[in-house]
Structure formats: C-alpha cells, structure tokens
C-alpha cells in the first residue's frame, strides 16, 4: 500500500513539474507578450525597466527556476492587471464564490442523478428506463450557458422571481446552481445506471437470489456496495472540477468567481495570474485523483492485490 501510494504521488509531482514547465515556457516565448497591448505605448527604456522589474530579461530557464522556487512556497508573484494584490491572494479571494456555487451544483447533480440512475437500473429495459436513458442524452446536450440564458429570460425577465445575476443572498444562487447542476445530472444518472446494471447482471447477484435472499437485501448488500466503488471514484473528482468555477456560468450570471477571472486573465495576457490559476487547478485536480486512487485501494482489496502482483 505504501509503495502504491508513493508511486502515485511521485507520478503527480512529475506531472505538475512537466505542466508548469510547458506552460511557463509557452507564456514567455510567444510574440506580443503582456506589454504588447497597452494603451499608452512605452519607450524602449521603459519597456526594459518593466521587464527588469518582472525579471523578464533573464534567460528562460533561470526565470523558470526562480519562479518554481517561489511557487513551491505558494508565491506566484503579482498579477499584471491587479498590481496591488498577489496571485495567491486573488485566487483565495475569488475561490469562495466559485466553490459555493460549484458545491451546491455538484450536490444537486449527484442527488438528482443518482436517484434517477437507480430508478432506471431497478426497472431495466422498461418504458421508464428508456425514458430516463433518453432524458440523460437530451439533458446532457444542453450547454449550461444556454440553459442559463433560458432561465434568466423566463424567471428574471418575464416572471421576476429571481435576480438575473450578481451576488447577494440565497436568492442569487438559485438560477446559477440549477443552470450549472441540471445538465450534470445526465452524466451522473448515466454512470449510476451503468454501474448498477453491471452488478445486477453479475453471477454473485444471481447466486444471492438463488439462495433465496429478498430483493431489498440483495440490492442493499450485494448490488449497492459493489456499485459504489466505481461511483465514488468517478463522482469524487466532480467536486474540484465544478468548485473551481465555470467560466460560462460565471459570465452569464455575472458572478465574481475564479472561472471568469481566468477568462479575463487570459484575454489580458496576465501571465502570472494565468500560470498561478493553472497550477492551482492542476494541483487541486491531481490531489483529488490521488486521494481517489488511494480510496480505491482502501475500498477495493482487489486493487491492492493486483498492485502487489504486478
């Protein structure tokens, strides 16, 4: 188990290093650069001063090593577009907005999706099952920003029940959470159904029925427990994925979140901020995958045994 954990962990470290190096080099070698688009043109001397201030005049490898040394201590420098803050400070300031909306949307998607998927699997190949499968394809095809538009048009512009955007009380959360979470129910329902159906058709479930066990007993003790393993491992990464914010939802509803900031940062070529957010996301997402892998080993003894023999 320790060996397995260490191997996964070093894999993630290598991945992060590779990613940070590629993104860093890309951002420093492109023509134009952060000072290509300023409104007031700068003289040669001023430009050189600016570059010296941000350390852009040194060789790339040296810049990367410096940057990495600071990044390890979570210091990603100063955003070009908000010089009064640090990148880390800005990320931490914006994260709670994205995290709240994302967490609620994720919970909504999971609760609704798992219930729908379980109903579907329990009535496999009935009209209800077919209807749910169709539902998951149709709903999964609705982009969240399109749904956001429709929701705002109906519930804000026409009915006036909810505010069209911005940040305030719980009322402001209803539409964004629904627009973000509803399309995601489709994938959750689909995967839940898939996991349950796989287990229902397995030999040991047939054996359990043959032993004379009740349907409810089989479902709770044999089916659900085994179906939970693939479900947990694929639903857990949904949380960091959705909690880091959707640039679409945040743009439609004008939320002050991380996703919107990332879009702005990339159109403004704010390299320190883009690099910081990229590494932050990659770190968060790979840590979740890491935890999921470990959890997988804890829940399912087969994984540990297979690792040992390989």
């Amino acid at each position, binding site marked *: 188990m320790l060996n397995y954990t260490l191997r996964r962990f070093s894999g993630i470290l290598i*991945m992060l290093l590779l990613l940070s190096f590629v993104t860093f080099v890309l951002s420093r070698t492109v023509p134009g650069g952060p000072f290509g688009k300023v409104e007031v043109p700068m003289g040669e001397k001023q430009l050189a001063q600016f570059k010296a201030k941000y350390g852009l005049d040194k060789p790339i490898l040296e810049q990367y090593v410096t940057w990495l040394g600071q990044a390890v201590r979570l210091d990603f420098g100063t955003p070009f577009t908000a010089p009064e803050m640090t990148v880390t400070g800005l990320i931490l300031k914006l994260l709670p907005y994205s995290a709240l909306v994302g967490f609620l949307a994720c919970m909504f998607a999971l609760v609704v999706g798992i219930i729908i998927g379980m109903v579907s699997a329990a009535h496999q190949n009935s009209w209800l099952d077919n209807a749910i499968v169709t539902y998951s*394809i149709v709903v999964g095809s609705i982009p969240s920003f399109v749904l956001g*538009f429709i929701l705002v048009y109906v519930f804000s512009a026409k009915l006036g029940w909810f505010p069209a955007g911005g940040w305030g009380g719980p009322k402001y959360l209803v539409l964004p959470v629904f627009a973000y979470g509803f399309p995601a129910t489709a994938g959750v329902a689909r995967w839940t159904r898939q996991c349950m159906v796989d287990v229902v058709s397995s030999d040991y479930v047939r054996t359990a029925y043959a032993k004379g066990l009740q349907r409810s007993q089989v479902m709770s003790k044999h089916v659900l427990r085994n179906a939970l393993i693939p479900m947990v491992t694929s639903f857990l990464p949904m949380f960091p994925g959705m909690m880091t914010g959707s*640039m679409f939802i945040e743009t439609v509803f004008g939320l002050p979140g991380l996703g919107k900031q990332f879009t702005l940062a990339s159109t403004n070529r704010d390299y320190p901020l883009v690099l910081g957010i990229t590494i932050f996301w*990659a770190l968060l997402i790979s840590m979740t995958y890491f935890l999921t892998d470990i959890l997988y080993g804890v829940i399912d003894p087969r994984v540990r045994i297979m690792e040992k023999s390989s």
Partner: protein
Amino acid sequence: MSKAKSQRNAQPNNTSEVHVASNWVAAWRRFRRNSLAMFGLVYFVFIVFVAVMAPVIAPYAYDAVDYAVTYQEPTWQHVLGTDYLGRDILSRLMWGARPMLLVGILTGLVGMVIGVPLGILAGYLGGAFDWFIQRLVDLFSALPWYLLVLYLVMVLSPSVMNLVLALSISSWVGSCRLVRGLTLSAREYDFVEAARALGIPTRQILFRHVLPQAAPLLLWGFASGIPGSVFAEAGLSYLGIGIRPPMPSWGQMLGQAGNYWMYYWHIFLFPSLCIVISVLAFQGLADGLRQAIDVNVNV
C-alpha cells in the same frame, strides 16, 4: 467440414472480406433501429448541406447591416428576425454551421492523426516509450480541456485553425488510449504472432493486421468527440475567444446579444436551439454507432 476447411484455406482473403462486410451490414441494421441515431445521421447530412450551400441558400449576406430593422422579431422578410445590427438571423445561423462543423470534424481528425500512431506505437513497443506516452495521457486527461484551450487561445490569438489546434491537444488522448488498448490485445492474437514468426516487418504488421481491427472503434471514437467540440466552439465563441466577428458562429451570436437578449427572445432562442439540437444529434449519432458496433468500453 473438411471441404469447407479446405475452401477456406484456399481463399483466405475472400472469406475474411465477406466476414468483414457482413459485420458492417449487421452494424448498419442495428444502427437503423435506433431512432435517435437515425435522426443524428439525417441531421448530419442536412447540416453539411446547409453549411456547404450557405452562400447560395442564405437569404441575406451574414454581414449585411440594416439599421432600419434592428432587434426585429420574426417577419416574412426576416424569418427568424434580426440582431442588434439588423442582420438577418437565419442567414447568420446558416453561415454559423460552417465553423461548428469545421471545428467538430477537424478536431477529431487532428486528434486521430496525433493519437492513433502514438497509441499503436505505445501498445506495440511497450517499455519506456509506452511509459512516457502513458504519463502524457495522464497529464492531458487530468486537466480540464478548457484550461488548455484558454491557454492556447491566449498565446495564439483566436481563429478557427487555432481553436482546432487547441482542442486537438486534449482530443488526441481518447483515440490514443483506445488504440493502445486494442494494440495490446491484438499483439496476443494468433495471426499477429504468425505474421511476426513469418518475419513480416513491424510496420507492416501494425498497418495491415492491427489497425484494421481498430477501424470501427475509431469511427465511433471520432463521432463521440464531435459533440464536445461543438460545445467547446459554441462556449468559447460565446466568451469572445472563439470565432472572430464578422464571421458568425452560434455561440458568438449568443455572446453578442449582450444584455439585450432579456427583452428580445428571438436573439438567443434560435442560436441556442441550433447548439442544443446539434449536440443532441451528434450525441445520438455517436451513441447509435457505439451500440451498432457493440463497443464495450468505459469512457
């Protein structure tokens, strides 16, 4: 029995071709029974026609500004109404099918051009090369696609080709993983081993014996990538970092509606419908293909 066997031995190529053909026929039969898949196929033909014929069938030019009729709701002159510059929405939707299809199809193709050779080599060669490719696949599948895309769009400036390039950077992973898995199992097949024993060069084994096995799966892999690319193009254009004006794109039309769409339903409804129907149709098409060729993979 012995007669049949000797016949098969005498004409190995013919029998295998018949076998392959009957597979495709059976697949088509299964595909036809799936109504959503057939809808997807019909829609695909229809939208390709619209995209190709847009200059001929569009009633107005996509950039014909008419300030006299801004924000006009549907009339007989402008069947789907006009936008904030008085441009005909129907015509712009027809032209908007072009970037949607271009990005959707090219992303899949470029992804395959990168992913298939890497997947075959990784699966067949194994060892350090395989390890390296696997780490790359891990890296790109752990990252959300929009992160890479935003990054590249920032660096390269938005255009159809750069959008395709940026999306392909994450789309090659799927076909690479698919082909690697297939190659790994194909390597164990008896006829591949026989070919190796006969001294046939590796390159020939890969392209003559291993790759044809992967053809139906690749077709499905290609189709299943389209909805995501359509979605990505619409979303990025909506954010203003996809297709550049004046060339219209459905997502861009939504984004340009700005703050006025709350009062003019036709400005956002028709582009929204186009996006949803396209994603749905391509999803149905991919799903039908998966059933038809009986793919058993978890993606």
